[in-house]
C-alpha cells in the first residue's frame, strides 16, 4: 500500500428529509483543521435522493469538494447501498481519512465500510488530531475504566477512519457564497442487489425527553442516595425550567429512564447551564457535558474530579445546598415578577 496515493480528509454527510445532520457540519469544522494541517482538501460525501442542492451548504461549512451520489436507490439509508457508494468513492479517489458521526447511521455504515476496505475504525472519538508530517490520525476516546483517554492509531492501513460523537466538535460559522467543486458520481446498483427494503418510516409523536435540546440541565448522580433523594433534582429542574439529567449509575439503579443519561453511553449535551449534583465526574460522564456553557458542580467531596471540569464548584451536602438554592430561586423569581408588574 502506497500511502502517497492517499490524500484529503473526508466527511460522510448524513442527511434526512433534505436536512444535513448537525454532527456532519461539526465534522466539517473538525475536518477543516485536519485538512489545513495536512495542506490537503476537505471533502464531503453526500449520498441520497434529491440531495445535490445541499452541496452549497457543505461548501459554506468548510468543504472544498463534494462527491455526490444522487440516485433513487439512495432514498432511504440502507447499509448495503450506501456502503457500495462509499466504497466506490473511496477506491476511486483514495482519501487519507474518513470521518463519520457516531450516530446509528454513521456507526452502521462505517463498520461495514471498514470491514470491506479493510481498515481500522476508531469508535466514538471525542478528540481528533493529525500528525502534520505523516498524516497519522490521532483519534482519542475515553478508555474503559478510570479517568483516562486512549489515542487509537491505524498505522498500516489507509484510509484511516473514525466515528465521532455529536456535539463534541464545533462547526465553523458558515461563509455565505463560499464555493467548491462538485463531483457527481453514479453507481450501477439494481434494487435486486440490495437485500433489505425500508417499508415504512414512523415518526414517534409521543413527546420524549430530548435532553440534547435543553438549555438548562440539572443532572444528579449516585450521591443522592436513593430514588427519593433524587427528587430534589426534579424539584430544582422544575424551578429553573430545565430538564433532568443523570449519570449512568443513576440510570442503572432505575431512578430515571435511560433517555436522561448524559455521557459516553448516553447523550452528549451542550446546554447553556449544566448542574452536576452528587456526580463524581468520571471521564465517561465528562465527555458528555464538558462543552456546556456554564457548569456548576455540587459535591460533598472536595477531591471529586468533577471540580476539575466545572466553572463553579460548591463543596457541600446536596441535601443542604439544593433546598436553599430552590428557595432563593423562587424568591428571585417573585421579585422579578413584582418588578415586572411595576414596570407595566
Amino acid at each position, binding site marked *: 500500500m502506497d500511502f502517497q496515493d492517499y490524500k484529503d480528509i473526508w466527511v460522510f454527510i448524513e442527511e434526512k428529509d433534505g436536512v444535513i445532520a448537525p454532527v456532519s457540519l461539526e465534522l466539517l469544522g473538525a475536518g477543516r483543521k485536519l485538512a489545513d494541517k495536512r495542506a490537503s482538501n476537505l471533502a464531503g460525501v453526500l449520498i441520497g435522493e434529491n440531495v445535490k442542492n445541499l452541496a452549497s451548504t457543505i461548501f459554506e461549512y468548510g468543504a472544498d469538494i463534494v462527491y455526490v451520489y444522487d440516485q433513487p436507490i439512495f432514498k432511504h439509508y440502507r447499509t448495503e447501498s450506501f456502503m457500495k457508494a462509499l466504497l466506490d468513492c473511496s477506491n476511486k479517489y483514495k482519501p487519507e481519512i474518513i470521518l463519520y458521526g457516531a450516530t446509528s447511521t454513521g456507526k452502521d455504515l462505517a463498520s461495514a465500510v471498514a470491514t470491506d476496505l*479493510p481498515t481500522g475504525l476508531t469508535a466514538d472519538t471525542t478528540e481528533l488530531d493529525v500528525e502534520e508530517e505523516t498524516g497519522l490520525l490521532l483519534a482519542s476516546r475515553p478508555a*474503559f475504566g478510570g479517568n483516562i483517554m486512549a489515542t487509537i492509531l491505524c498505522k498500516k492501513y489507509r484510509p484511516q477512519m473514525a466515528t465521532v460523537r455529536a456535539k463534541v466538535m464545533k462547526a465553523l460559522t458558515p461563509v455565505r457564497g463560499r464555493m467548491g467543486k462538485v463531483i457527481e458520481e453514479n453507481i450501477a446498483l439494481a434494487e435486486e442487489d440490495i437485500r433489505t427494503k425500508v417499508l415504512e418510516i414512523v415518526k414517534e409523536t409521543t413527546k420524549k425527553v430530548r435532553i440534547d435540546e435543553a438549555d*438548562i440541565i440539572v443532572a444528579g448522580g449516585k450521591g443522592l442516595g436513593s430514588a427519593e433523594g433524587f427528587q430534589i433534582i426534579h424539584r430544582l429542574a422544575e424551578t429553573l425550567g430545565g430538564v433532568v439529567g443523570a449519570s449512568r449509575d443513576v440510570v442503572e439503579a432505575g431512578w430515571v429512564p435511560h433517555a436522561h443519561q448524559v455521557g459516553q453511553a448516553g447523550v452528549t449535551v451542550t446546554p447553556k447551564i449544566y448542574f452536576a449534583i452528587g456526580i463524581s465526574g468520571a471521564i465517561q460522564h465528562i465527555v458528555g457535558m464538558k462543552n456546556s456553557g456554564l457548569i456548576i458542580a455540587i459535591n460533598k467531596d472536595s477531591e471529586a474530579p468533577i471540580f476539575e471540569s466545572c466553572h463553579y464548584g460548591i463543596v457541600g451536602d446536596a441535601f443542604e445546598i439544593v433546598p436553599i438554592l430552590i428557595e432563593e430561586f423562587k424568591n428571585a423569581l417573585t421579585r422579578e415578577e413584582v418588578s415586572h408588574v411595576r414596570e407595566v
Partner: protein
Amino acid sequence: MHIVVCVKQVPDTKIIKINPKTNTLDRRSAPAILNPYDAHAVQEAVRLKSILGRGKISVLSMGPPQATEVIKKCIEIGADEGYLISDRAFAGADTLATSYALSKALEKIASVDPIDLVICGKHAIDGDTGQVGPGIARRLDIPPVTNVIEVSEVNSNDRTIVIKRKLSNGYELVQANMPCLLTVEKEINKIEYSPLSNMLKAARYKSHIWSVSDLGEVNITQLGLKGSPTVVGKMFTPPKLEGGKMLDGTSDEQVSQLMEVLLEQKELLNVK
C-alpha cells in the same frame, strides 16, 4: 430455523470501581458477566423459536476459557448449544479481527447446520464500539440490520424477516432477506425467568471449545493483535479545565454567590 447468537463476556461495569488515586480500574472488583445486550439477543432467539414452534438456538463466544460461564447463562435463558472459540492467537483483537474470527466459527457451525439468522447485541458494555455485528455480516456477506427494537414477522416460506429499527425520532420498518444479521437494543424484550429444567441443563452443560486449528482454513495474519489495524497509542489523563472557581463560606453564602452567577443568565432562567 437455526439462530446463532454471538455473546461476549464482559466485566460488570456497574460493580467495577475506579481507584481514585491512580484513575485506573480496580479489576478485583469486577465480576465477569454476560454482556447485557447479548442476554436480550438470546432472549429474542428464544421468543422467535417458541413462536415458530421449532428451531435451534446456538450461541457463540470468543474469549478466555472462563467464558464458558456466559455460555451456561445462555443455556439457562434457553439456548440449545454453545460454542467457545478460545486461543492465544485471538488475543488483542480489535473489531476487525474479532469479526473475522467469529465469522470463521460461524462458517464452521453453518457447514453442519445452515444458519438463518445471526443476532448480536447493539454493543458490548466494555469495548463499546458496536462495530462487531455489522463486521460479521459483511464477512458472511449477509445484510445487517442494526438497532432492532422488534422482530415483527418471520416468513419462513419466502425467507424474509420484518423488523423495527430504531431511529432518533421514531423507527423504520425494514424487510430483510434471510439469512441476515440483527443487532438488538435492550427494549426489544424483557428477560424472562428461566424454567428449572433450563437451569439444570445449564449447570451440567459442556460447551464445544475450539482453538484456531479447529476452525479449518484461517488466515492467521488476520487474527488477534496481528490482524488488528487499530492499536492503542498513548493513554493520557485529559487536561484539567481552568474554570473550577470554588465558592466558599457557609451553605447560605455559597448559594448567594451562585445566585449572582445564575442571575446573569436571567433571560434563560425566566423561560418556564
